[in-house]
């Protein structure tokens, strides 16, 4: 592999890592509370509130059903408002987060709803407040499942980030598109795909490992 191409790989890898790292962190910060809120406000939840659950669920579903490439373009005004520009690495982080946060929120909701109702009842019987139930019962008990859900979210973000090249964000996907697909360089394309496979395998493996360590059931 020529030196310049190798450098391109390193740069692309770094760009992907930054995109995933930043929007992954943001998705966690937004998706987790959103998921907890969805679970808590669902019928039978600790804060059952249909008036909040229904619109929240509708928004989450709307975002999740929009194809990422369309989201990428449709969110340009929002991106410009937040990042100040609609192109480059920073600009890709907004649509990536907007797509991943509701995705993770749904997975987090499922995780929290999987905590047996008896535990919540036991905590209530001990005099736990709703906030305490969240922190002492729901999150710790759902943690292995939350980690598994976040792992899946990150993997799907790696996938989506390949399209971020459309707004000039670079990254591995962009490299495969420009050098591999558009220049008919099958070697570069294959190499990028292999790197992506390794990356996804590593993320998934790390997630599985952590989830297993946390799971005492």
């Amino acid at each position, binding site marked *: 592999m020529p030196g310049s191409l190798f450098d391109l790989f390193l740069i692309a890898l770094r760009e992907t890592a930054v995109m995933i790292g930043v929007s992954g962190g943001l998705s966690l910060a937004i998706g987790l509370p959103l998921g907890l809120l969805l679970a808590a406000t669902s019928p039978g939840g600790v804060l059952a509130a249909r008036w909040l659950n229904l619109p929240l669920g509708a928004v989450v579903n709307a975002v999740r059903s929009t194809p990422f490439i369309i989201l990428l373009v449709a969110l340009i005004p929002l991106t410009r408002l937040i990042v100040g520009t609609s192109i480059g690495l920073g600009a890709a982080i907004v649509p990536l987060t907007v797509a991943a946060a509701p995705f993770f929120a749904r997975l987090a909701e499922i995780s929290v709803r999987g905590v047996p109702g*008896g535990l919540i009842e036991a905590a*209530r*019987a*001990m*005099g736990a407040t709703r906030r305490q139930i969240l922190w002492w019962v729901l999150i710790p*008990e759902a*943690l292995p499942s939350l980690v598994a859900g976040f792992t899946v979210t990150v993997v799907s973000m790696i996938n989506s980030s390949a399209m971020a090249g459309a707004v000039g964000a670079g990254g591995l996907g962009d490299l495969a598109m420009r050098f591999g697909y558009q220049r008919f360089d099958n070697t570069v394309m294959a190499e990028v795909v292999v790197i992506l496979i390794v990356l996804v395998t590593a993320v998934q493996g790390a997630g599985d490992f952590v989830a297993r360590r946390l799971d*005492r*059931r």
Partner: protein
Amino acid sequence: MSAAQDILSRALEPPAVAFEGVSRRFTPRNGAAVAAVADVTLSIPRGEVFGIIGRSGAGKSTLLRMINGLERPDSGRVHVDGRDVGSLDENGLVALRRKAGMIFQGFNLLSASSVRDNVALPLRLAGVAKRAARARADEVLELVGLTDKADVYPSKLSGGQKQRAGIARALASNPDLLLSDEATSALDPETTRSILALLKDVSRRLGLTTILITHEMEVIRAIADRVAVMDAGRIVEVGPVWRVFGRPEHEITRSLLAHDEAVDREVLARDDEVVFALHFDGVDGREPDLFALGQILGAGARVVQGGVERLQGRVRGRLFVAAPRRNLANPDEVLARLRRLAGQVEIVSEGVWVDARQLV
């Protein structure tokens, strides 16, 4: 304080738990409202082990959950220590719940916390520092005999050990009240006995008021002082265990006790013998007098089924005794004499009661 003063102050202090005309209805999604609890009035004094027995769906669980405000009555009042649970705000409820430990059929231990941290949880929720909460957890774990499992996660425990941890957790914040929701229903008979013995022991030692619900009369028999029988949301019978079980007034109570009632058909079908059922209900303190029984029924009389047990020191049970028909020349006299031996005497034949005069 003199004994008389002691009795007086006890009588004046409010009961640990009192229900006043409490009702609760549930409306299932596809149907009419069902009364889970219907007009229950009940008073449970301090220090008592009080059992509530009934079939599943009788409303026991709803009734129990009203004590710590997990369920609210539609009408009526629930008083705990003289305070109306319905009038408590969120803070008041939290304070009440910290003084009322609860144990569950499914144990409900946190899978992600060690046994020690599970037991410490109620204290941590109440704002006790980690170190102090863990120290207290170790104390209660010793009380329930689970010291060596403190660092283990609940998934590594047997059912009995899980319930011991549950009991330790319920006792951690020094409650006045212990609520048990079918705590032994998921356990095998031997483990059930050991858990019941533990409950009885801690209730007495810590002076707890213990209220337990169950569908198994063994549980009531083993530890309760008084029992209420519940059916379709109502309390149909209430009283000391020996009396309710010894002389059940209500059909439901009888059916809950009925597992030992049927007599072998072959025994009943023999036409050279008459089978008598002798009930001992503990009310008059009579016990089966075998010598007197032999004198009345004559040679060849035998016990074919049944037995007696002791409930709170009183004999309760039923003996089925067969006597050769030829010994019973005067059935009225035989019956009259038998009735001096037992609380109630019946003649059994092919599973139906028959008039004594048809015998001879």
